[in-house]
Each structure stands twice: as structure tokens, then as C-alpha cells.
């Protein structure tokens, strides 16, 4: 077989695999969209929170999985988005799309202001800097009376869409959050597949080599930091749209750590894996915890240890392994 034929053979596999992926994606989307029709208000509300949290987890994955920068600071931008959306909701308009845009801009601007320091470092130093940023923003939220200080920000009216009536039913809020989360997921997927995504993976794998090829990695790292801030801010706005209450706890260390944990469990670098991780983490913390006498964090810790030992590349790595084995057999 000549080289050209082999290239074609490799390309020939791709359309079939892409078609299979598209079928799975459409099926998952239909199931998610149908959820409010069959489930009660409480499970739907849980799923809404999972979706908003998954958007935050995507932003962590963009930094940690794609660019190789483990972070504990994304909850700060998530919180900036949530508080901004809530303030817009209380003082300006109940239109959810305006709140979403405001949350996005808030996350982007906060990340742009604080990221310039963080992206100069790598590895553990970067992790500590993002932790410091996260704790500082948390401290501001906890003490600043304009945003309710430690009482949190309450009194946000229900969201409306395109001038319609207030969305009071959990199902309608869920559909709005689902639609927005899907758009964010698609946007992040596009970034990951684009030349910029390739640049980011290059930085993750071998930064010295990138410089030797003429790249300025610090610039690309700053870019993705701002982008991840915008994604996290969007997630925060979605969180606020559902909860209609934001407290300093929503941007605390625990949220940041759980987001990073979701990425590790799901498989850093994959996009759907960390979303599954987000679902698992929130379900264990909020739902399973009561069943095990409030020891949810203990269960999460055990899950984390099990994943690190049994699935070093997360849930997504497990799926990739099964796919490879199937191809090897056929």
C-alpha cells in the first residue's frame, strides 16, 4: 500500500466515526431536552444546576486539560458572572439573554484583569496564584455590602426571555440553561478543534519547543485564560438564572476544587468526559450525601482515589480504550 493510499485509508475511517459521534450527540441532546416532560420539578432543578456547573467545569478543562494549566481560580470568574447577572436581574432587566451576556463580559473582564499575573507562572505556582485570586475574589464577595456581603445577594426576580412572561416553571428555566450550555459547549469544542486549540495543546505538551518554533506562549496562555474566564462567567449567569440567589459560597474554594475534581474524574482534555464528571460530583454532593449521613465529601474522596488508580485518564480515557480494543478486534 502506498503512502497516499494509507492516508486515504486513515481519512476513510474518520467520516464513519464522526457520523457515529453525531448520532450519539443528537440522542443525548434529545434525551436532555425531553427530561422536563417526564421528570418532576426537583430532578429537573438538579439537572439545571448540573448544566450550569458543567459550563464552569468546561472552563477549567480548557485551562487544565487543553492547555495544561491546573487551576483553582475559575470559581472566581464563575462568581463574577453570577453576581453580575443577579445584579442586572435585580436592578436592570429580567431578560435572561442580557444577564447571560453581562455574566460573560464580567467573567472575561475579571479574568483579563487578574490573569496577566497568573499566566506568567506554570504548574504548581500557577495553581497557587489562581488559588490566591479565587480566595481574594471570595473575600471581596464576603465583605462588600453592595453584593450583600456574607448574606449573599437575594431578591432576583424570575428570568424572562425575549419580552415574554416570567419563567416560573423549573422546566422552562431548564430549557433556557440547556440551550445556553449547548451553545457554550459547541463554542468550546470549536476552539479546541481550531488552530488556536492546536497551539494550546502544543503549549501543554512542550512549551520550549513552541518558543523554538517562533511562538510566544505567554500571549496564547493569556488569551485562553480570558476565554476560560468568559466561559466561567457564562456558567455563573446560568447558575444565577436558576438559583435567583448568589452567595459567597458559590465562588469559594470548594466550588473551585469540585470543578477541578470533575475534570480529573471525567478525563482532562476531553470535553464530554468532564461534563459527566460535573454531573457525578454534584449528584454525590447534593443528593447522595443525605443518603450516606452527610458524608458526601468522603464518597467524593474515595471516587477521586479510585479514578486516579483505576482510570488515570478519566471516564473519557476508559471510553477511548474500549474503542481502540474494538477496532483492534474488527
Amino acid at each position, binding site marked *: 500500500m502506498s*503512502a*497516499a493510499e*494509507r*492516508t486515504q485509508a*486513515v481519512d476513510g475511517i474518520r467520516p464513519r466515526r464522526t457520523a457515529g459521534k453525531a448520532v450519539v450527540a443528537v440522542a443525548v441532546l434529545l434525551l436532555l431536552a425531553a427530561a422536563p416532560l417526564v421528570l418532576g420539578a426537583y430532578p429537573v432543578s438538579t439537572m439545571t444546576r448540573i448544566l450550569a456547573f458543567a459550563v464552569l467545569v468546561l472552563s477549567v478543562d480548557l485551562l487544565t486539560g487543553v492547555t495544561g494549566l491546573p487551576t483553582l481560580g475559575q470559581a472566581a470568574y464563575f462568581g463574577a458572572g453570577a453576581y453580575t447577572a443577579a445584579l442586572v436581574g435585580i436592578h436592570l432587566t429580567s431578560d435572561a439573554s442580557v444577564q447571560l451576556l453581562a455574566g460573560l463580559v464580567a467573567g472575561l473582564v475579571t479574568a483579563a484583569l487578574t490573569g496577566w499575573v497568573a499566566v506568567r507562572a506554570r504548574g504548581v505556582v500557577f495553581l497557587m496564584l489562581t488559588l490566591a485570586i479565587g480566595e481574594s475574589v471570595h473575600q471581596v464577595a464576603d465583605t462588600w455590602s453592595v453584593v450583600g456581603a456574607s448574606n449573599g445577594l437575594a431578591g432576583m426576580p424570575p428570568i424572562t426571555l425575549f419580552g415574554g412572561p416570567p419563567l416560573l416553571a423549573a422546566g422552562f428555566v431548564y430549557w433556557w440553561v440547556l440551550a445556553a450550555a449547548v451553545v457554550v459547549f459547541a463554542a468550546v469544542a*470549536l*476552539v479546541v*478543534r*481550531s*488552530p*488556536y*486549540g*492546536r*497551539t494550546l*495543546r*502544543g503549549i*501543554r*505538551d*512542550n512549551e*520550549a*519547543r*513552541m*518558543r*523554538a*518554533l*517562533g*511562538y*510566544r506562549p505567554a*500571549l*496564547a496562555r493569556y*488569551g485562553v485564560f480570558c476565554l476560560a474566564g468568559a466561559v466561567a462567567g457564562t456558567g455563573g449567569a446560568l447558575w444565577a438564572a436558576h438559583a435567583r440567589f448568589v452567595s459567597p459560597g458559590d465562588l469559594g474554594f470548594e466550588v473551585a476544587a469540585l470543578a477541578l475534581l470533575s475534570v480529573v474524574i471525567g478525563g482532562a*482534555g476531553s470535553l464530554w468526559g468532564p461534563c459527566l464528571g460535573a454531573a457525578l460530583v454534584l449528584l454525590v454532593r447534593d443528593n447522595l450525601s443525605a443518603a450516606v449521613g452527610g458524608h458526601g465529601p468522603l464518597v467524593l474522596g474515595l471516587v477521586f482515589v479510585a479514578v486516579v488508580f483505576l482510570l488515570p485518564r478519566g471516564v473519557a480515557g476508559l471510553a477511548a480504550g474500549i474503542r481502540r480494543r474494538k477496532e483492534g478486534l474488527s
Partner: protein
Amino acid sequence: MTPLLELRGLTRAYGSLTAVSGVDLSVLPGERHALIGPNGAGKSTLFATVAGTLPATAGTVLFDGADVTALPEAKRARRGLLRTYQHSSVFLGCSVLDNVALAVQRVHRVAHRFDRAARRFRRTEAEALRHLESVGLAGRGADPAAALSHGERRQLEVAMVLAAEPSLVMFDEPTAGMSAAETERFAALVERLPSELTLLIVEHDLDVVFRLADRVTVLHLGQVLASGTAEQIRADDAVRAAYLGSARTDDLFTGGTP
């Protein structure tokens, strides 16, 4: 003809140890220049100082007529001064094609675009594939770079460097750790490179050196011992003495006791 690369009194010291001391060297456009010398002669340090990986302690690096001594590595690379590493340095978590495309997309100025999927940038993809083919890695594009053998990674590095559109390529011990067959394939690959491309090669394998190089510079204890055509170097007594080990190694420590 003005040299493409000119070093004037280039010096690099690590504390009291002067690894490279006052090296003068010029490489003409299109020349295949080999840098040899026993272990510890300062070849790799000289290399890193020319590429900008390490800053020079003293002296000047002129590239294409301009003083680039103060420029960081990335800026030198953008001017066409590209290097490879002694231990192959590729993007192991990326596909083979992505490795080369990273170099191409920087040259095509699309490295920060995220409005479309990478494979929709047809010109970049085609160029990356062409470079993969030219080093004999066509058909491996979809494989992860981690799946390549040592020799194949070296081939991939050549494709990456060529894709960055260099005028001078510096190879740091490219055949180190290669089998005889891999070395042969690599030497043939270098021989096929376009003749207008200037090469500076650090190499231990003297067969490869005398096969590829027009000119050879011998480095010993951080200084230029001899420079000339392959024939002149082969006949040089001082070079022979350096290689056969009659030199006193305590000359390495020029600063004396601190």
C-alpha cells in the same frame, strides 16, 4: 558573499566555568557546516547561545546581517534561525500531523484563529502533509507522536523545522542514539534538503560529518581549535591530539579556585 551567520567573540560562562570562550565563526549561505569536538568541548552550549535558548555572556551573534544577540529564541526563530534538540523534542500528546501543522500555522499567521476547525484551513493542512511526505512520514499523520520510534521522531523534527520556513537549521546531535539503519536514513534525508538551505550540525558520528559537511569547525575546551574543509580537518594534528585525549582536562577550569 556575506555570511548568513557570524559569531564574534561569542562567550558563555556558567559561573567560573567558561563553556564557550571567544568563538569566531562564520557560516555562508547554503553551506553545510559541521561543529565537532570531544565531550565537554562546549558544542551544545554554543548551540544554545546561537539559538537564543541561553543568553550570551559576551560577544555578538549576527544573523542575516542583523545583530540578534539580545533577541529571545522565538524572535530568532521568526527570522528563520531554527534549531532541533539533542533529545528529540516533539509534542507527544498531539498527532503527527498536528506537530508539523503547529509550525506551518505560525508561518501562515493563523495560529490564534478559532473561528473554524483546523482542518478547514486547507492551505495549512496541505502544507503540513507535504512536509510529512518529504521526510517519509506520509500516512502516519493521524497517529499520536508518542507512537513514533526514535528515528521517526527525528524525521518528524526535520519536517517541523522545515515547515517553519528556516534559512538556517541547526541540528544538535541528530543521529545520537540511532541505529545504523536509522542514521543512514537520516543522512540521506539531510542530503536531499534544498541546497539553498544553510545547515549547522553538531555531530559525534564523524562518518556522518564528513559525508554531509562542506566545512568543519572543531571546538575544544570552549575555543575554536581548527576550521576548514573536511580534508583539512582530517589531516590536522591538533584535532587528532584533542580527539585522542592528550589534552589536559584541568584546562576546563579557567577561573581557578574561588
